[in-house]
């Protein structure tokens, strides 16, 4: 896949009003059916269509010439494209799954769409099709997480949202991440740390680079193909300079990126999505000469492990290495579907409804009818067996009834009928992983403390070391007037020494 280096900015961080050539774009077919594709003004792979590059989907074909320059968020009609007799192989990937292993299936979700067959050479304008459309969206980390080619388990939106929140990742944070896996967390983290681009092109940019703490994601992955694939994506998504990926085993070899000494990272947040995070922790102490930790900030850490045993080992290790405020939580998230539920005899024969009686009255109505029918049946039953095969009056009336119901459908506004209900989506994730959080306070030596005491001497009767004590009474008084742990306390005393 060709890598464009012409991005000024990532479409994840900034997108202009219109879809631009070489930008990653998302074709939204419907909820959870999202196809990422890189917009190309020409069929650079020279594989195919007279219209240039084309994305084929279940809902129609979309030559990129009909997407480029269109405002983001537009609903775009499908075009009539000769997909060729053999052109259906990679169609949409997700829809009709063939017997393929998961990995290549996942790859097809993205790449497969762009596979094309050679049809003719001269380029022509796209012709609108009668039906079919997609919505053209710029990528966001949420959309990417829902559409990315899975190479590993990934961290989904509810978890990464909470993790980034608890890690206090804000613009300017320097975050270490391992292992990068499929890059789901990576993209969300990149958006969160971003606070401007380091200009690597201009000569005199070095000064700025030193001065400003640029938000950055230092990412590590020890699986070679995964690392390679993610590196391609990072570049294609315009995230280079924000995400720095290194192919390395962080447990064995620590957190030293390519080309950068670990001591220059000065990370203040860490996310470990590894099978044995406790093995990586030894490389995340302040003591180590190749420590990637910022010496002047507190470090926020999160580990993400599916099993409780992993959590216990991690926490045991954290306790011995100076980490504090250790907490463990799980996140349970689910979506809720909203629909209109229609119940009743009037729905008989329709789909997506419950056509049993909606009320006692309807039940009685139905019972009376059945009662009446069987009375006829009993009366006539004595007369012979042909009754069973001949269409009885009851059956005719049912057919008629269904016909009537179907007819009546035309005039009904089903979208506002029935009862408006909500319920959890059919399948909910009850467990993703356990999230362990911890904080390593900034190192604080005795000299540091002495300096601070010099700068902020204790006041009044309390003097350094050998001064008088705060009187008990005073303390009591303070406690009395301000007691109650829930109240916000403000000291209103004068600022004078």
């Amino acid at each position: 896949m060709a890598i464009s280096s012409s991005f000024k900015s990532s479409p994840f961080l900034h997108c202009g009003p219109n879809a631009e050539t070489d930008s990653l774009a998302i074709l939204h077919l419907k909820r959870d059916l999202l196809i990422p594709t890189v917009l190309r003004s020409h069929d650079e792979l020279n594989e195919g269509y007279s219209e240039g590059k084309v994305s084929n989907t279940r809902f129609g074909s979309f030559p990129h010439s009909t997407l480029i320059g269109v405002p983001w968020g537009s609903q775009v009609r499908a075009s009539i494209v000769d997909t060729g007799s053999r052109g259906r192989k990679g169609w949409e990937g997700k829809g009709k799954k063939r017997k393929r292993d998961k990995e290549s299936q996942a790859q097809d979700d993205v790449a497969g769409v762009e596979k094309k067959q050679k049809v003719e050479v001269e380029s022509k304008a796209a012709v609108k099709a009668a039906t079919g459309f997609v919505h053209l969206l710029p990528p966001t980390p949420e959309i990417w997480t829902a559409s990315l080619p899975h190479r590993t388990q990934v961290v989904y939106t509810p978890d990464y949202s909470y993790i980034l929140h608890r890690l206090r990742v804000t613009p300017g944070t320097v975050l270490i991440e391992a292992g990068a896996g499929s890059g789901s967390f990576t993209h969300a983290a990149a958006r969160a740390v971003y606070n401007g681009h380091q200009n690597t092109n201009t000569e005199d940019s070095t000064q700025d680079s030193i001065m400003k703490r640029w938000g950055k994601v230092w990412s590590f992955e020890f699986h070679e193909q995964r690392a390679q694939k993610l590196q391609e994506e990072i570049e294609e998504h315009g995230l280079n300079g924000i995400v720095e990926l290194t192919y390395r085993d962080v447990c064995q070899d620590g957190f030293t990126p390519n080309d950068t000494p670990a001591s220059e990272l000065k990370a203040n947040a860490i996310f470990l999505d590894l099978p044995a995070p406790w093995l990586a922790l030894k490389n995340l102490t302040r003591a180590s000469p190749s420590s990637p930790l910022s010496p002047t900030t507190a470090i926020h850490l999160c580990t993400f492990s599916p099993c409780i045993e992993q959590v216990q080992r991690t926490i045991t290790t954290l306790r011995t290495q100076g980490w504090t405020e250790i907490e463990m939580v799980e996140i349970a998230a689910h979506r809720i579907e909203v629909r209109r539920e229609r119940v009743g005899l009037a729905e008989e024969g329709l789909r997506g409804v419950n056509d049993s009686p909606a009320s006692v009255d309807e039940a009685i109505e139905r019972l009376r009818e059945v009662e009446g029918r069987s009375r006829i049946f009993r009366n006539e039953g004595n007369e012979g067996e042909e009754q069973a095969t001949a269409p009885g009056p009851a059956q005719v009336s049912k057919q008629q009834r269904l016909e009537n119901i179907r007819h009546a459908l035309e005039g009904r506004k089903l979208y506002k009928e029935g009862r408006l209900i909500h319920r959890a989506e059919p399948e909910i994730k009850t467990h993703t992983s356990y999230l362990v959080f911890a904080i390593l306070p900034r190192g604080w030596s005795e000299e540091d403390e002495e300096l601070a005491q010099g700068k902020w001497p204790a006041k009044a009767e309390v003097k350094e070391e050998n001064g008088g004590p705060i009187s008990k009474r005073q303390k009591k008084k303070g406690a009395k007037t301000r007691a109650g742990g829930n109240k916000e306390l403000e000291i209103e005393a004068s600022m004078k020494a």
Partner: protein
Amino acid sequence: MKQELVQPHAYVALRLPSDSTIVVQVLPNTVSTISIGKYGAFQANNILGRPYHLTFEIRDSVTSDGKAQSGLRIVPAAELYADIKDEAPETPTEAEAGNLGASGDGVEYEIVGQNGEVVMRTNRRITDDPSSQIMTMDEIEALKAQSTGSGKELIAKILESHSALDQKTAFALAKYTLRKTKKYLRRFTVVPLDVATLARWILTDKEPMKIMELREEILSMIGSWSNVHCTPSVSTPSLDGEGMQTKGGRWLVVDETAGLLVAYMAEKMAILHPPDHNGEEAEGKVLSKQETDAVNGDDSIGNPATKHVVAPPPDHLRPRKTSGPGTTNTITLIHANAQPNLSLLKYFHFDAFNPSISHPLESHLKTLSWLQLLSPEDDMGCAEPEIVSEETIQSWKSGKRSNHFRKRRRWERINFVVDETRAGEFDGLIVASIMNPVSILRHTVPLLRGAAQVVVYSPTIEPLVELSDYYSTGRRTAFVTNPPDFNSMPTEDFPLNPTLLLAPTIQTARSRSWQVLPGRTHPLMTGRGGSEGYVFTATRVLPAEGKIEARGTFKRRKVDDGVTRNSSRQENAASGDSGSMEIDAS
């Protein structure tokens, strides 16, 4: 970024042994003390200039041998966990080995065997008798009064005096110890009052209704789905060929959480902290021995050429260098009352009524009322103050003159904000309001650019269910098939234009906290009740003109068999596609 060291005048959170939090402002050099209720009191100067996340212990004024001592002691991390006997890892570390000694005061109430196995006792023969606590409350008080320590000795004494102690099971004993610890340990941890801590404090300790019971899990989801982030101000050659600067990163918000949401967004957009309250700059300069790690404030985002060769001096306001009057990374707030309620912004040193010029929110936060947005001609503030001739102005007293200019400036600003807001093209919308979301979205969705994200928070689900119903697939199909007269909108059937939002979804999340201790790992047994909290998310889209017909398979209700991961869900996930049955009708 936040400060790393406690700065004068900063608001900080103090986490107490009881797990409750209090918030105090740290005023420097004052004689009066900061009280943490029954745990004691200390001087602000004792925590100033110290790093956050340290745990302090309030020392008694007199040591056991009668010598006076002062203030606070920093509790080393190892000591914090000294009472927990973790099973030894394969290779015990020094810290682990040192733990036993670290508690130092000879208190022994470990309940787990040397090599990690729990010394199990059963509670069959223990009677639950309050009299088994032999010390009376008075005795405990007396002991407290003469106590010279941190509370640890006291706890040990209480435990010793508990006659049934030997009978307690390990589990119960651990719980008992924990309870006593929470009650008597005189420790606190200083935590920076960032938006997350503020949100948690108000929810659990202060006034949950003030922030509409917004939990952190939900708040963080709002952050993600709204896509709110720091946006580069890129000068891109626009498609029409003129090299104009692109506007970007403009979010619209309806915030009735007293400004929590605005603060949260501002933090993510790097406009919450004034440069001198910015950790990037402050870091490392309070103590001169720390390496100076000077960095620019966030205001330099739009201005990469700015250089700071020397870190600016601490505790001094610098004039803000703006990259123009807020064209990128801006928040536009629409409020229901004459004035917005942004009271929580005071914790970030921003006063909406009297904004300091040095605070980035001064130019990046814009506010207007619903009246100003929808009917500016009816708003007094939007009416132009009369234009007075130069001579007349000169003849006025200076007070009247400056009053005149102030009025005109205010009018210019509000007019600018109104025009700009009505011109729309916002990158996203976040709503947390007790008003009906239908009425809010009716007026705000049209102000969004294509692909803008919409997030609506509600403490209860009902308003969002109603909202989703108005955007259901069935309703949208009916709308497209038989469009109502545009001028008659909103109609009874279509209170909102259902074609403007894509993939409306309701979701919720909840965290569950665990206790992780050797042999005693389990979820915490109580949590916060009250409102669950939900978010509605959707994407603003630009519907194609003219009739448009769907293609494909969604006439079939059947779930595609090959689809495993997400797609099986999509057929009937929240409102957007839940209406597939209705489509059959059209």
